[in-house]
């Protein structure tokens, strides 16, 4: 019984201290924001590895998600003779939910895991300690540019995802299934509100980018510096990021679209 209680206590304390370390880590990272912003070269290099290399997977997934939405939506809507609202359905579901959420999940899998592995390996091979020896703060030099690049590229990637998805839906709906093109776009334009739908989607994607980059950088920085520790940290990044994205999505949706 005592051992059972102490196991619970141990895991609670471990979780709490880890959360605390994570918060301190975030605070340190954010405190370097301005000094890193003065060195745009550092950020642009990270924008390449975090953002540019993720475009391909985002574009392809967005295209297929949009095309599937077009097909499924058409079959349901045609039962009610409301095929013209296909555009609204595709655009609303992409801009509000699927764009930010799916691209954040892909982002966690593609960019987040590589960030964790990179930093964890730097720690395992004592590059971070080496930097500290040379009086270079690894958080300023390594972590903060990656963090900013992640926060910047996530909304852009989500916007690309939604755009490609809508075009894919148009490809299936208009070109393949014969929905009227004018009705497709005009109904979409009259139903999707810029502030309520698109801006809220952008806010969601910024939040997801923040959380995913934070989790992946912290897991890498906090990893046990062995090859096994790094591989576990990478797994944890993807798992925790996915949990965080889906959980935060519910909260954000309730705050933005629910009339509470």
């Amino acid at each position, binding site marked *: 019984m005592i051992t059972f209680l102490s196991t619970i206590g141990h895991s609670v304390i471990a979780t709490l201290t880890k959360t605390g370390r994570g918060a301190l880590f975030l605070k340190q990272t954010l405190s370097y924001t301005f000094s890193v912003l003065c060195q745009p070269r550092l950020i642009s*290099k990270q*924008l390449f590895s975090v953002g540019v290399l993720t*475009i391909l997977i985002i574009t392809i997934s967005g295209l297929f998600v949009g095309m599937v939405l077009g097909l499924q939506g058409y079959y349901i809507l045609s039962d009610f003779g409301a095929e013209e609202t296909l555009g609204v359905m595709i655009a609303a579901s992409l801009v509000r939910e699927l764009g930010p959420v799916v691209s954040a999940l892909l982002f966690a899998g593609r960019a987040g895991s590589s960030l964790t592995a990179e930093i964890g390996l730097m720690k395992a091979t004592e590059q971070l300690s080496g930097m500290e020896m040379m009086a270079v703060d690894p958080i300023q030099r390594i972590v903060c540019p990656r963090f900013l690049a992640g926060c910047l590229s996530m909304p852009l990637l989500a916007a*690309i995802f939604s755009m490609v998805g809508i075009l894919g839906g148009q490809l299936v709906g208009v070109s393949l299934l014969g929905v009227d093109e004018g009705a497709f776009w005009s109904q979409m334009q009259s139903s999707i509100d810029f502030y309520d739908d*698109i801006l809220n989607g952008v806010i969601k994607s910024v939040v997801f980018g923040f959380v995913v980059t934070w989790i992946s950088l912290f897991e890498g920085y906090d990893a046990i510096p062995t090859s096994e520790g790094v591989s576990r940290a990478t797994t944890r990044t993807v798992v925790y990021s996915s949990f965080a994205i889906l959980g935060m999505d519910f909260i954000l949706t309730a705050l933005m679209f629910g009339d509470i």
Partner: protein
Amino acid sequence: MQNPKSLETLVGLFVVIGIGALFFLGLNVSNLASYSDTDGYTITARFENSGGLKVRSPVSVAGVRIGRVTAIDFDNTSYESVVQMKIGAQYNTLPDDSSASIFTAGLLGEQYIGLQTGASEDYLTHNSELELTQSAIVLEEIIGQFLFSEKEN
């Protein structure tokens, strides 16, 4: 990796595509383009019942959209619905005895305000009020009336 020049080009391309996608969403997918009619004048109309009219519902004359509803309020003393609408600045020759009605686009479509032009020599100006109004047609009321008259016959 590539040399720094092409890296920067690719990053620049990424940012441009991303921002371009945001613009695409803003202008082509959403109603942002129709927000642009900022200059114009406001007129009000009182309705007994404004039905399913919403803020940003269209205001049209002869089937052409000339403005949008900007506010719908309830008058505490006359128990009427006070609808404010903004008319585009170029439509400044509407007679001041025009009347406003609330119509439904299609059987189940959204509701909009249709203006019927009058014959007055004077034009509507900023803050003028339309005197002649016709309330929204509430489908349930019509069905109710129809059933009632059937019974009497």
